[in-house]
């Protein structure tokens, strides 16, 4: 029997190991797995590489992990947002490494990992500082940059609904990076606002359960 439901967030987060590469879904304040991040903070696991669009704001989400000193490295497109004080503090003190990736390239590198592709040529960033040191070539008369697949050990995902097979749906713009990150990690951990009793309508599934490791209900909405 396939049953990916796990009772508590703490249990769900247990597979995260010291030094893991952890993708965290969400954009701004929407679709962030706050419950799982809190559980990860409580676990105390450190040396993490965090892959996420932003690097936290205020005193919640990824900011907690940064404040706790659990983060060694951040890979993201937009670390500097209003209130990203913990990121800025750690960065300026040289306590966290930063890799800035154009947002579309970030999404595509994540997808490439999930889809089993080694890398891809994209025009994004050609001729800019973010392409320095990368292989480039002309394709169809345009400069393009070779970008490599970005894999993770763990993905932390926020969904609206989940079923016991791990199928997921999302609410409004809380979808964002969540489905594509679910594909790219060895083990994908989901907090869902509702865990359904029965199966989801097969045509309404946005992220098929094959990409999901575990599902925990976490009803709080930001």
């Amino acid at each position, binding site marked *: 029997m396939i049953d990916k439901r796990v009772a508590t967030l703490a249990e769900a987060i247990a597979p995260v190991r010291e030094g893991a590469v952890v993708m965290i879904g969400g*954009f*701004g*304040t*929407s*679709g962030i797995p706050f419950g799982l991040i809190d559980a990860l903070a409580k676990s105390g696991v450190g040396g993490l590489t965090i892959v996420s*669009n932003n690097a936290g704001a205020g005193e919640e989400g990824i900011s907690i992990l940064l404040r706790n000193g659990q983060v060694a490295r951040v890979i993201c*497109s*937009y*670390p*500097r*947002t209003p209130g990203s004080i913990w*990121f*800025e503090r750690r*960065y*300026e003190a040289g306590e966290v490494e*930063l890799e*800035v*990736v*154009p*947002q*579309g*390239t970030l*999404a*595509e590198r*994540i*997808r490439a990992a999930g889809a089993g592709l080694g890398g891809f040529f*994209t*025009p*994004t*960033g*050609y*001729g*800019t*500082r*973010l392409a320095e040191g990368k292989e480039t070539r002309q394709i169809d008369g345009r*400069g393009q940059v070779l970008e490599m697949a970005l894999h993770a050990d763990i993905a932390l995902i926020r969904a609206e609904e989940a079923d016991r097979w791990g199928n997921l749906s*999302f*609410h*409004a*713009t*809380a*979808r*964002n*990076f*969540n*489905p*594509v990150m679910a594909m790219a990690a060895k083990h994908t951990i989901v907090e869902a606002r509702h865990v359904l009793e029965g199966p989801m309508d097969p045509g309404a599934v*946005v992220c098929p359960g094959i990409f999901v490791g575990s599902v925990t209900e976490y009803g709080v*909405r*930001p």
Partner: protein
Amino acid sequence: MSQKMSALHRLSDNDLARRLAQDIPDGAYVNLGIGMPNKVAGFVPAGREVMYQTENGLLGVGPTPAPGTEDPELIDASKQLVTTIPGASFFEHSMSFAMMRGGHIDIAVLGAYQVAENGDLANWATLDEKHPPAVGGAMDLVVGVPTIYVIMRHTGRDDAVKLMERCTYPLTGLGVVSRVYTDLCVLDVAPEGFRLVELAPGNTLEAVQAVTGAKIHI
């Protein structure tokens, strides 16, 4: 304020956004950057149906929700609460950037630190190494969207020149800007460099040229 500046007549931010909005045609798919670009939506003439895309996964962004109807998980790229208009769709991030990079969006309106006469754009990082860089979706937009409009004040803090022969800040994209809308004038990026489309009311070419770092062709 320097003497040369005193002769200039500057559009307000709202009037500048209103000016640009006239050039958003009916039926267009448009991405608006954070800040001043985002103001444009409010001034598009009535009767035009424009589909605004926000990079975080929505095509068909509507206005700010009425009090009491807010959905905390329905936001735009500026993290502001928004609504949807009829015909809207939600999608995930790799799809959102496929729309941009794949040439499906018609127009993007962006802010800028600097624009060069060859169309180079600098809008993501300065030379101040103290602050961590942050690029977001700007580099994807400029390579994929065929028409890039820049909206910005003509000059920066301390009258710093922002329109110039070559950018000095790190580039966002090479030769990507189609047209620049400033509080002093509208300029096309043409093969020969900046070409005057119009001056904001009350300005002379000489006065505007004096605060521009590259030749304005007419």
